[in-house]
């Protein structure tokens, strides 16, 4: 590992430590959130209100030194509210583009499934292409650009479930869940989160984050691990319970995420443990049961128990 890479890793670990101080008892989840960002993927958090989704997004933005914006998705949110509009200016006698909240480095899309499919797809297109096109004019999004979307776990009235193709654009899906008893006690007795958030310091610059993203390309991926990844992907496609298996995009994402996980674990090669760490979060929201049409996160765990490690 090069000294530069080592330094980046130290900074990221420092960032991670700060996060763990804010969100208690959720170290594996926070690690996966970092893995997702390092692998240049977008994050989907599915949980009930009040477990700290916003706090997480806010804290991530702060420790990574990213510009942060939050958009509450509702049924009357229009694409223009998100992306921005071209306004005619009388002084210059031309249209000027007013960028929307999406022009930020870390966007928290709260309750994404409350917005209409039209708005959802506007966001997801921007996520895929890293740019916003309005009136034939392309406006590149800042770099790095992450989206953390949250959605409620149940399909309630007045929500629009994300279609499979769009779910596929989120690299990982995480559940925060309730804190365990000890963490909850610490939470109740400790400082307010808001104050803690204010005390966070950026651990690295956006440029360093981009450098870290490049660094993970050098992580070694040996044949047996590739075999394992392929076997897992194949298992999702062969399993008759699922309406469809993992896409090649998901497979590529899995490789990236594994590399990021390996790097964060201070290793120069990917091992099956990394795959097992990342896979449930990666496959959980993509594998829809044929019978109910819903995703069951347990299935991904079960596949891990079933597929042999070569």
């Amino acid at each position, binding site marked *: 590992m090069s000294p530069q890479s080592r330094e980046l890793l130290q900074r990221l670990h420092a960032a991670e430590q700060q996060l763990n101080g804010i969100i208690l008892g959720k170290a594996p989840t926070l690690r996966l959130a970092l893995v997702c960002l390092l692998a240049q993927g977008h994050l989907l958090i599915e949980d009930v209100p009040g477990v700290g989704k916003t706090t997480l997004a806010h804290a991530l933005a702060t420790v990574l030194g990213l510009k942060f914006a939050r958009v509450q998705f509702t049924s009357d949110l229009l694409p223009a509210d998100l992306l921005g509009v071209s306004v005619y200016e009388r002084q210059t006698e031309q249209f000027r583009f007013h960028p929307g909240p999406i022009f930020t480095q870390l966007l928290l899309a709260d309750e994404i499934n409350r917005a209409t499919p039209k708005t959802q797809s506007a966001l997801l297109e921007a996520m895929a292409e890293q740019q916003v096109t309005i009136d034939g004019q392309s406006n590149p999004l800042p770099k790095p650009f992450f989206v953390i979307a949250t959605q409620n776990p149940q399909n309630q009235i007045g929500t629009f479930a994300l279609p499979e193709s769009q779910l596929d654009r989120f690299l990982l899906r995480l559940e925060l869940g309730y804190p365990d008893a000890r963490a909850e006690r610490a939470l109740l007795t400790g400082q307010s989160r808001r104050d803690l958030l204010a005390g966070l310091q950026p651990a690295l610059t956006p440029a360093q984050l981009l450098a870290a993203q490049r660094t993970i390309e050098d992580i*070694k991926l*040996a044949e*047996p*691990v590739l075999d394992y990844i392929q076997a897992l992907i194949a298992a999702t496609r062969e399993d008759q319970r699922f309406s469809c298996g993992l896409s090649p995009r998901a497979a590529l994402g899995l490789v990236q995420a594994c590399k990021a996980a390996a790097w964060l674990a201070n290793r*120069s*090669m*990917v*091992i*099956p*443990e990394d795959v*097992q760490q990342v896979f449930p979060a990666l496959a959980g929201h993509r594998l829809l049961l044929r019978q109910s049409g819903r995703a069951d996160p347990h299935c991904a765990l079960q596949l*891990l*128990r*079933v*597929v*042999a*490690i070569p």
Partner: protein
Amino acid sequence: MVKAHTLLALQHQQWLSITLAICSLPHLVQQPPWLAACLALVLLVFSSLSPDWRSRIPRWSTWLLAGVVATLVWQAHNTLVGREGGVAVLLALAIVKLLETRTRRDARALLLLMFLLTGVAFLHGQEPWQAAYALLASVAIIACAQHIENQILPLGNNLKASGRILLEGIPIAILLFVLFPRLPSPLWAVPDSQQARTGLSGEAMTPGNIANLIQDDSIAFRVSFQGPAPDSAALYWRGPVFDDFDGEQWKPAYAETAPQAAIRFTQVPQISGEGPGIQYTITLEPNQQPWLLALDMPVQIPAGTALSNRLQLINPSPITERKRYTATSLLRWQTRHDTDEQIMRSLTLPVAGNPQARALASRWASLPPAARVQAGLQWLQTQGYRYTLSPPLLQSRDRVDEFLFQSKLGFCEHYASAFAFLMRAAQVPARVVTGYQGGKANGDYWIVRQAEAHAWVEVWLAEQGWQRVDPTFVVAPSRINEGLANAVNTAELPFMLRNDNAWLRLARLRLDVLVNHWNQWVVGFDQQKQQDLLKKLGIEDFLSLSFLAWLFGGLLLTLGGFAGWLLYKHRPARLDAPSRALRQLERKLQLPREPSETVSDYLARASSQRPSLARRLQQIGALYLACRYAEQAEKLGALRRAIAALPARSRR
């Protein structure tokens, strides 16, 4: 298990149709053309029916069709059993079965019928190409059967696997073929096949029928001499003998059928001779005749055959399969104790006819018998007779006269017939003998073809008994000395007897060497041959210990060999070095790793069971990960050493 009542798809039906077509072809070409055309048409129509259509066809129509086909077969063969009828019925059955093949069970039954069809195709002949075709058909059937059972297999893999299965079957087949006891005679009498075939006739000799044979370059028989082969001019292969002449045809003294057949073997003359006996083995192509050919004159004849009183070698039944036999002959011989009846019969001529010939013969009446023969030969030699394969047609009532005094162009049969007539008219007992003359050496054996059919004369002289006289020899000595090709115009000859285009002929002769081996060792592998071969292996009879040792030893060796090879081929794939080391660790800890368990989890589990090893296991884990996933091969030694150094778990 694959369900037997699964309905077949269109693809299956097409496979079955094609395979059935392959299996039926050898039978179709043997059927009368109209029947073959009917069956082929039915096959074609059935194969194009979709499963949907098929399911709409009522069952009774299948029976109706079967009835119609049975009637057609009856029309063609006048029987529904036996060789021709049975085969035709089987063929028709298979084709009708194709129509009502709907489920996998039907398909399996049809496939078994196809195996049977392929096997019984050998009733039509056992040539090498027929055997090759049967192998090909077998591969097709196996492939089709595989497809029916498991259609997921790609065509290429399927054909390859089918070919392999066949090849694996061959060693066992050869072993059993050599060792399975053969019976000397069939289990029950089989009706004869009424196949017409060209060749010498034993019923009559009419001038012209040997000339027809000249165009036929198919093989009459093959000969291998145990000692050195005699000069080809001495190779007179003795066949039917003819005594009675009616002015047009020569006929044998006795019909081949009862009640006269038995008389043939009474009062057989005694043969004496000098010189070494020539032993030879003939492989006779089936000629559908009850007599065999032998070098003039046989003194030791094969078992089961008999020499008639006309010195003709007789077989108890017509030769319908290729026959192989060994005999010994003398080239110079005499007969004794010839009966008066026979001599008198050899002097008989029609009451009238051919006055010119009779007049000519009467001129020699004053000479002694031997001189009369010489005079006759001299006449033929000096009066401008020519040897030709295409003599003018003789149409008058006095055909001998017409030939001797007008056309003077003739073939061996003309000369033999005319000369025997002259001799009888000159009061010398004479008869016509037919057979083959000459042959062509091909490696260590000789080929005698139909085109080498010949006719000559035997005269009876008081001191020597019957003696061979060949009038053709004085007219065209080159026919006897140098073969047919030198005696006549090349264009008149069939290809294999000509002298030009040597390389092509050579190639065909080389091929014939193979065919000859095939005939001797495969087709002609009968009880006799088997016994000879087994004797060489030290097996005296089928109940001896050595036979059982050979049979079971061979079988075990073959089966074991295949089983071993198969196990080797189907062995589990070899693991890489770090994984083998890990397996070693699992054995040492007596704790198997779950297939989906990562090494870290496994070692954690192991550590919890044996906490004293925790630190070392952690080290092993790091080494393993480095070896396997960082591909640092240099750490492999350290990994192995670390595992070897672990204390083994004591067995309780």
